[in-house]
């Protein structure tokens, strides 16, 4: 649908990831200098110029599989390491948080304000590092340039595209359950109270006019809700009061980051069909992925001592248990690319892509299909 969705998806998910990692680093008492380095390294990679150039190009959204691969890579852009279970949980939290924010946005345009909230926080994380700060500022400018001219309808298309991406995801998040913004069935609470969006009137008034435009009758009706006023307009510039609170950091050291796998909707009929794409789709995605990740410079783990592991769970045992007990329908299909072999992987990818594009003129579709299978097999083996 909208070809301008990927930058917003990436920046907001990235922002949530940083909030969670920041919380875990502090909860695990990682030394301040190491923690800061992790945050700086990840943010540097996120806002790498070449990477962003690829990201901001008009394109369809990636599949969940491809996007998860990008974030796996991003999470390992520093000396920090995450086990599979922790990475799964991190991704669950990131996606459910952004799904919540997209759903609750009063206006479609407010997705941009949510993005600015994430950007404001990211800027704060790197305020002492001028080189990264300038990259972040440059990204603000790109966001402003690309998104502020869009109409309400175009923002709604972006929102609809995002909602298709998040469709059928109902993972329960502890912090949401506690705050009563999510029900025990995993669905978010949509209040019919509070202020109405900027530009909307509180429902209840009918005005009728004569042929020459004079108001001739007014009727009131009960709106069934409890609306209290109109929201002010947030700032769409580099600085300013955003008004919308969605996208600000909801974690602090004392608030745990749990998710619940059991009891989540077991309706297996709701298999996400968007992912069961034929091979040709996967190949095009691999093309895009290779170009995107070509711009991502991932830290080589030099000195083994400087690396450390972050756990999204309270104990190592819990983490192990989570990996074993994770239900099948929630497993993320990831294209595995070892962080330590990144340069080799890049070369391999590039070579594969090169080989493939030479053969693109092949008329026989069966050959194309097997090529796709080979590609995927190679990727998984890397």
């Amino acid at each position: 649908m909208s070809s301008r969705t990927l930058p917003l998806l990436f920046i907001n998910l990235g922002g949530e990831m940083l909030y969670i990692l920041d919380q875990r680093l502090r909860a695990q008492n990682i030394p301040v200098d190491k923690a800061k380095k992790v945050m700086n390294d990840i943010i540097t990679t996120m806002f790498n110029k070449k990477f962003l150039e690829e990201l901001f190009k008009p394109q369809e959204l990636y599949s969940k599989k491809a996007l998860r691969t990008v974030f796996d890579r991003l999470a390992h852009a520093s000396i920090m390491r995450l086990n599979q279970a922790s990475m799964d949980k991190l991704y669950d939290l990131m996606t459910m948080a952004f799904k919540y924010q997209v759903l609750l946005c009063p206006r479609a345009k407010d997705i941009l304000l949510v993005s600015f909230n994430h950007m404001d926080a990211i800027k704060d994380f790197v305020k002492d590092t001028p080189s990264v700060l300038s990259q972040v500022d440059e990204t603000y400018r790109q966001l402003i340039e690309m998104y502020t001219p869009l109409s309400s309808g175009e923002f709604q298309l972006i929102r609809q595209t995002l909602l298709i991406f998040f469709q059928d995801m109902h993972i329960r998040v502890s912090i949401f359950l506690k705050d009563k913004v999510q029900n025990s069935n995993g669905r978010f609470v949509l209040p019919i109270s509070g202020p109405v969006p900027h530009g909307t009137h509180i429902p209840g008034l009918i005005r009728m006019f004569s042929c020459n435009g004079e108001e001739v009758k007014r009727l009131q009706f009960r709106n069934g809700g409890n609306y209290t006023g109109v929201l002010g307009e947030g700032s769409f510039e580099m600085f300013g009061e955003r008004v919308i609170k969605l996208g600000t950091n909801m974690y602090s050291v004392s608030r745990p980051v749990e998710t619940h796998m059991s009891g989540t909707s077991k309706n297996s009929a709701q298999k996400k069909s968007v992912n069961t794409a034929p091979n040709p789709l996967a190949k095009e995605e691999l093309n895009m992925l290779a170009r995107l990740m070509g711009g991502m410079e991932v830290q080589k783990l030099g000195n083994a001592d400087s690396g450390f592991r972050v756990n999204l769970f309270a104990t190592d045992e819990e983490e192990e248990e989570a990996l074993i007990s994770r239900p099948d329908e929630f497993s993320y299909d990831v294209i595995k690319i070892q962080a330590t072999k990144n340069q080799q992987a890049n070369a391999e990818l590039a070579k594969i892509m090169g080989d493939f594009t030479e053969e693109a003129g092949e008329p026989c579709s069966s050959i194309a299909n097997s090529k796709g299978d080979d590609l995927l097999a190679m990727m998984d083996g890397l």
Partner: protein
Amino acid sequence: MYHKEKSIQMKSSASALYNNLSVLRIAPRSLTYFTVVHANMVNMVSASWDGLNYSHRQLQSKEANVATSSSLIMQAAWCVLPSRDILVLTSQKGIQMYESDGSIMVYWHALDTPETQTAQAVFARGIAAVREKYICVGISSGSMLVFDVPIKGSNITLSEVLEEHKESITDLASECSGSQECIADMVSADDSGNLCVWKSGEDFQLLNKIPGFQMSCSSVKLWKGTVVAGYGTGQIRLYEAVTGIVHAEVNAHARWIYSLDIAPFSGLLLSAAEDSLVRVWHLTMTPETNSVEIVHMYNECVTDTQICGAKFCDGDGYAFAVTGYDLSEIIRYTQV
């Protein structure tokens, strides 16, 4: 006024798309068909009136050229013509038309998609059957395609391309009162809220252009010469189609309106929005004073659901059905 009936379960959930529910009542077979879009697929459920038999079918967006990415469907709607009912699917790649129960595809029209991806999205959206022989479909560029549909068979042809809108088409509606006296046959709406009123024929004629106010009009209906338009601000406006005179303005919803429907025999209006509310209104025309009145009748809150489709199941408005984002059921209500 209404109470909830047993819901119909679907094979997959509804996507957040405008006007995401289409209902076709087949009286001779005591059946009602419901179609709901889920990403690149359409869920079709046929429900017998005695509530005992349900059958499901899923249609994929089949594209002629499968080389590139899969195509998301923007809308699926029944077009009721005198001799046949056609199911129209509009997607990012083109327009598919199916015969009656969705078993046979009778026509495929590919959209001009550029070689490399452009910032402007390409898709078809907005479907209406007009008079006896036309099916009109809107495009993201603002153009509208007019197809000439024969009484039977697959010899459907593109009759005309209407270039009036500059923004993406959001919805199309044809005069639904059944009256032959109405001058205006169709209204089209776009993302900037502009409305165009048309008379059908060999060449469609633009009768009037009603300017928008920079806010998308996501759903539109035309009944007895009155345009009913729902906007992203939650407002509903009633206009006289051929003159553009505003009859009424309603602060109807607290969020973006996703669906409007009219029961032509009774003048009941149904509106549904992201704010979880479905509202029923009543329209009365007073030809002597050339006025239209709208009164509020009923509210139904579908808890924690952003509604994306709401349609009456019959011409009197005795029953209506609702779909919501992430919901795998079609919720039904009937009058008490």
